[in-house]
C-alpha cells in the first residue's frame, strides 16, 4: 500500500491559561466549523479524536464532542484515549487503505479543571508506582537530573530553552503570552523551576488529512506525510536510561527525521527538548518550536497534534520545505511519535 497523504488544514483555539467557562463541546464547536469552512468539506471519510476522561473527571468525554462534529447522518468515527497525534496516526492508516480520501482529526483538553500533575499519577503502574504517589513533575525532575548529570548541561541551559520558547510564543496569537523566565525563581522540584514546566492550558485543535489529488484540490501547498512512526519505551523509570529517549530515536529514524528545517517538539519540560534534540539528531540549523511549543501553550491531548499542525503550517505558508512534528505520551517521554512532512517533491 502506498498512497500520498497530506495535512491540508490546521486550526486551533486561542488557548487560555485558566478556565474560560466553556465546556469541551463549546470549545470544539467553532473550531470544527472553521475547519469545515476552510476546506469547504461538510463531511469527511473518517473522523478520529483524542481526549482523556480524567481531565473532565467523567467517562466518555468524547461522546459529547460528537455534538460539535455534527455526526448526522452517522459518520465513520473512532477515538483514542491518547494525544490526538495518535488519532492522526489512526486516520493516516485508514487513508492508506480505505475507500476514503479525507479525514478529520481533533483533540481537546481542559487541564484547568483538575490538578494536572496529580492526575498524571493515575497513569502509573497501579501496583508498584502509583501507590507511592509520585507526581508528574517529580518524575520529570528525576529525568532532568539524570540528563543534566550525563550531558554536563547546566540549569542555565534549561532556562535558555524556556526563554526562547516564551519569546517565540509572543509571536503566536494562539499561545499564552508568558513573561521572560526569572532566574531567581525558586525550584518547583529541583532541578526544575516553574518556567521549566509547561503551563496549565485549556484548548483544542483540528487537522484535515487528504489523499492524493484531493489534497491538491483542498490546499495550495499540501504538507505531505513522508514518514510517520511511533514507539514506546518500558514504563518503569528504573527499566530505561532516563537521560535518553530510545523510542524517540527509533521513531525518528523510521520517519526520516534527518535534515528537517523546522521541528515542533512536544516537550512539556525544558530538559525534554534537549533529550529529544539528541534522540532525533536535530542540530543548530533546525528551528525548534518556532510556535513557542508546549512551554507556551499545553492543551493536554491536543498538544502533540498541534506540533504536527504547526509544522505543517510552515509548509502551507511556503516558509519551509521539510519539517517535523513530534508528540509524546506517558511519564518521562515514554512514548514518542514522529511525523515528517514536506512540500511537493
Amino acid at each position, binding site marked *: *500500500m*502506498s498512497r500520498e497523504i497530506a495535512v491540508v488544514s490546521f486550526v486551533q483555539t486561542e488557548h487560555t491559561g485558566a478556565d474560560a467557562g466553556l*465546556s469541551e463541546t463549546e470549545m470544539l464547536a467553532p473550531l470544527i466549523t472553521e475547519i469545515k469552512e476552510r476546506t469547504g468539506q461538510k463531511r469527511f471519510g473518517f473522523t478520529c479524536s483524542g481526549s*482523556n*476522561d*480524567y481531565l473532565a*473527571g*467523567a*467517562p*466518555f*468525554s*468524547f*461522546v*459529547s464532542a*460528537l*455534538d460539535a462534529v455534527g*455526526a*448526522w*447522518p*452517522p*459518520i*465513520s*468515527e*473512532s*477515538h*483514542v*484515549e*491518547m494525544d490526538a497525534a*495518535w488519532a492522526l*496516526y*489512526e486516520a493516516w*492508516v*485508514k487513508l*492508506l*487503505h*480505505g*475507500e476514503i480520501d479525507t479525514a478529520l482529526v481533533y483533540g481537546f483538553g481542559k487541564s484547568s479543571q483538575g490538578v494536572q500533575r496529580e*492526575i*498524571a499519577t*493515575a*497513569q*502509573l503502574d*497501579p501496583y508498584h*508506582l*502509583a501507590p507511592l504517589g509520585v507526581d508528574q513533575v517529580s518524575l520529570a525532575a528525576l529525568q532532568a537530573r539524570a540528563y543534566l548529570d550525563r550531558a554536563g548541561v547546566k540549569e542555565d541551559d534549561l532556562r535558555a530553552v524556556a526563554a526562547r520558547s516564551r519569546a517565540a510564543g509572543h509571536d503566536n496569537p494562539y499561545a499564552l503570552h508568558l513573561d521572560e523566565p526569572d532566574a531567581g525563581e525558586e525550584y518547583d522540584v529541583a532541578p526544575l523551576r516553574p518556567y521549566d514546566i509547561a503551563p496549565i492550558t485549556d484548548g483544542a485543535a483540528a487537522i484535515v488529512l487528504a489523499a492524493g489529488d484531493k489534497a491538491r484540490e483542498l490546499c495550495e501547498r499540501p504538507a505531505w506525510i513522508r514518514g510517520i*512512526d*511511533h*514507539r*514506546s*519505551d*518500558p*514504563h*518503569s523509570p528504573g527499566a530505561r536510561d532516563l537521560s535518553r529517549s530510545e*523510542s524517540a530515536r*527509533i521513531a525518528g529514524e523510521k520517519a526520516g527525521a534527518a535534515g528537517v528545517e523546522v521541528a515542533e517538539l512536544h516537550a512539556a519540560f525544558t530538559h525534554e527538548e534537549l533529550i529529544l534534540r539528541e534522540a532525533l539528531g536535530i542540530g543548530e540549523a533546525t528551528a525548534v518550536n518556532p510556535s513557542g511549543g508546549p512551554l507556551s501553550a499545553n492543551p493536554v491531548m491536543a498538544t502533540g497534534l498541534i506540533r504536527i499542525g504547526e509544522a505543517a503550517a510552515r509548509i502551507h505558508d511556503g516558509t519551509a520545505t521539510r519539517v517535523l512534528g513530534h508528540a509524546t*505520551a*506517558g*511519564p518521562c517521554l*515514554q*512514548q514518542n511519535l514522529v511525523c515528517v512532512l514536506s512540500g511537493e517533491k
Partner: protein
Amino acid sequence: MGNACAIVGVGQTAYKTKRLDVSMAGLLREAARRALDDAGLTWKDIDAVVIGKAPDLFEGVMMPEAYLADALGAAGKPIMRVHTAGSVGGSTAIVAASLVQGGVHDRVLTIAWEKQSESNATWGLTVSGPFTTSLVVGAGGYFAPHIRAYMRRSGAPDHIGTLVAVKDRQNAIKNPYAHLRIPGISREMVESTPMLWEPIRYLETCPSSDGACAMVLASEDAAKKAPNKPAWVHGTAMRSEPIFFAGRDTVNPQGGKDAAADVYRQAGIADPRRELDVAEVYVPFSWYEPMWLENLGFCGEGEGWKLTESGATAMDGDIPWNASGGVLSSNPIGASGMIRFAEAALQVRGLAGDHQVDGARRALGHAYGGGAQFFAMWVVGSDKP
C-alpha cells in the same frame, strides 16, 4: 479494503466475577499468550500492539497502555489504545486490522479487556461532568425504556426476552471460557428472578466480568506460515451518531443500519440471514437480540421477535446467534466486542470447539456502545477474499 488481513491467533481468558489471581497485566498476558500460541509466534515476532478497553474509570488506571507496554512486549515497538465506549473491543480489532490492510505491519497483536473487579462499573458510568445531570441508572436503566419502546412498536409478547436469556445460557454451557454456565437454565428460572429495570429481569442481563481477549492479525505472507487455519477479514465498518437529538431513532439506530450496509457491501452480502452462517452480536440485555436482528437486516422491521421465537437463532436454527453464549454469559465490558469478533473468527476457522456451528464459512462479529450510538462490525470468512 487494502491488503488481505488474516486472523491467525485467538486467545481468551476464563471470564469470572473476580480474577484475583492475576494483575491487570497478567490478565492481558494470559489472553495474549494463548493467541500467540495459536499463531505459532512469540512476543518478538509482533510488530505492533493495539489495545482497547472501556472508560479508564472502570479500573482507575488512566491511559493504561503506558503501564502495560512492558508486559505486552511493546518496548521499542508501537503501542496504541482505542476507546469507543462499549463498541471498543470491535473498534480495536478494526484499528489493528487496518494496520495490516494499510501495509504498515505484518503481525499485529490486539487485546481488549476489562477487570471490573478493580472498581465499580456502575459508578464509573454514573459520574457526570460539571454541566450535565447524572441519570444514576447505569446501562440497564438507560436501555430499559428503549426496550419498552421496541415492545410497543413491534407488538412483541413479553416472553421473547426470556427465550434469548435461556438460549444464550444454554450455549454458554458448551463454552469453557463463559462466565455464566447455569445448569438446568430454563424459562421458569429466568422468570423467577427479580425485575431490575422493567422489563429486564436479573437473568436477562449480562454479568460483570473480569477478562481479556486477544487476536494476532497477519498479512497474507505472514499468514502462510501460521500453523492453524486462518480466518480472513471480508469487511469492517464503524459508525457513530450523537447520543441525544430530536428525531433520533434509539430503538433502531441509523448508525447500526449504515455500518451493516457498509460491511455487507464490502463482503458482497445481499441477504445476511442466508449468506452468513453464524453471528456473534453484542446482546447485553436479552431483548437486544430481536432489536438487532432487525437493525442488522436479518429480517424486516417488527419481525425480529418472530425470528427469535421460531428458534432460527438457536444452535440448531438456520442462523445461530451467539453460539458462544454471548455478552449475556460473559461481559468484561471493553473485551466484549472483541470476543464477538474473535468468536466469529473461531467459527470460520472451525476451532470453536463444542459450540462450533457445523460448516460455518462466513460470520459476523458485532459490537455497540454508548447510548446505542457507536457501532463496530466485521465479516470474516474461511476463504481469502
